[in-house]
């Protein structure tokens, strides 16, 4: 097994374990409260409107929007860390079929690992600091690194020999 394969497989397992632990922590301590908050906000908005309390209804809709913004990104972070980790493990098994030089394969593996960590981290930072440009920039940098690494792997897989 090449160094690039090992990096992707072990990096993928570590990232998957981290993503699962993050998801478990979120599910145990945050998710139920968040879901209750979203459902409760919508119910409050409609029942408030039915009672003619429109400021309360609008406040509840705003609370629903804010909670949903956070929820979507937290779920995205969790699922993308695990999803990218799964992809890394599978590509790690297939890495020896990338018809490129060993050194180049190692750099692809390293880039994929780096991008897979940074991209969801950027999404998490967007959730923590809404509207921060640096958080969005972190996400974009991670996504670009993953894109370049995947494109290089497509070329390597399609080639007959390295």
């Amino acid at each position, binding site marked *: 097994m090449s160094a690039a394969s090992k990096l992707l497989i072990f990096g993928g397992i570590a990232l998957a374990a981290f993503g699962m632990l993050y998801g478990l922590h979120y599910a145990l301590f945050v998710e139920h409260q968040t879901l209750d908050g979203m*459902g409760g906000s*919508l*119910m409050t*908005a*409609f*029942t408030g*409107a*039915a*009672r*003619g309390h*429109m400021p309360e*209804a*609008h406040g509840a*809709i*705003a609370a*629903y*929007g804010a909670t*949903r*913004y956070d929820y*979507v990104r937290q779920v995205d972070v969790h699922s993308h860390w695990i*999803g990218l980790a*799964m*992809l890394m*493990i*599978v*590509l790690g*098994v*297939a890495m020896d*079929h990338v*018809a490129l030089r060993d050194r180049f394969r190692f750099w692809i593996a390293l880039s994929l690992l780096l991008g897979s960590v940074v991209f969801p981290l950027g999404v998490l930072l967007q959730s923590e600091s809404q509207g921060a440009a640096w958080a969005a920039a972190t*996400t974009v940098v991670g*996504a670009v690194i*993953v*894109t370049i690494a*995947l*494109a290089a*792997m*497509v*070329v390597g*897989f*399609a080639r*007959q*020999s390295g």
Partner: protein
Amino acid sequence: MAVWEPPPIPPGGGQRGPAGGGVRIAPKDTPANVAATFPAMGARRLLVFGGIALIAGGMLFGDIFAVFVLHQNGGQTGEALLAASRAVAAQNPSGVKDAFGQIGSLLEDRGTKIDAHVHMTDAGYLALLLALVQPYVALSAERKKFLAKLFLTGGTLLPVGIFLIHYVGLAYSPFSVIGWASVLADSAGALLIIALIGQMWGLWNHFRSMRVGAVEAELPEDRSWERRALLSGGTLLVLIGFLHGAWYAGTMLYEHEARETGILETMLNSASANDMTAAGRSVADYGALQAEKAVNIAAHSHIIEFGLLAILLSFVQPYVFLGAEWKRRWVTLLLAGSVILPAFVLLELRMGLVAGGIADIGGLMVIAALIGMLVGVLRYSGRLDAGPGATA
């Protein structure tokens, strides 16, 4: 615990299965090194069969769900939201609660079916992935086979349990919030976790002890057209899905979020002003927005999952005992279906049910290709098990 040993090489260069069975000689036309990686009813064979069957079953369920449940469920949810708006107009808070109760039930119906589909296909992907790493799982053949059976049992029962949650509810349950179907799903999930812990323990044993390379014969080396097409095509699908997700997040996600709260505000304002025409329009807008989000997320996730499937299936190709032309046909069909389904799911917003129908055909193409490959693997196994004297 039972320890593993490097597989003994029988005299004459034949291959012995790691299960400790008799000398197994590769049948005619079957390379011996490939045959050695696929012992009769060994863990890898079980995981390959079970994995492909779970993926095909999960996809078929997803197709049936998309045709017979998804759109109808969306329509009923819209009607319940309209009922909630009417209750607001009638200043009837208990009517709002009833409508939200109905929306909750509809969301549970839809959610459990999507979860059943996702968990069945994902268990299939994991089974194929585990089949790939079997050479590095340092456990006895019997234990590996037991873990494979445990995993496949859990992978089958988990989606069944999830599917039944909506129908069984809390009937005859001794618990206040957990029904028997949830108990079944959770127990099946526990089986999967136990099986995965066992596999990780085997991997740990292997990498801790560097006495030999692989525990059993490694996957055959192969740079055939099928493998290259599946590897490069699969990675390209993942890349396209990734780019689509980035484009969606960059250009549409924030706008969708702002639009959703805006629509809800308008809906409430219209209903409280007793303007049910405007409220009805808002409900329709809300449904359209949910559909817009759903097709983008479905296209993103399906194209990436099909990419992963193609990459995983590239490793199964040496076990597909079919003519080269048929192997290429199944690979082409799989990749074509993998593009058609997500592309036409996205086009549903513009083309309506016609695009939905074509997307379903794309799903059926992937299922047909999977079944074709499964038949090839079954033929391979039959030929291998029948021994050198067997005829095709």
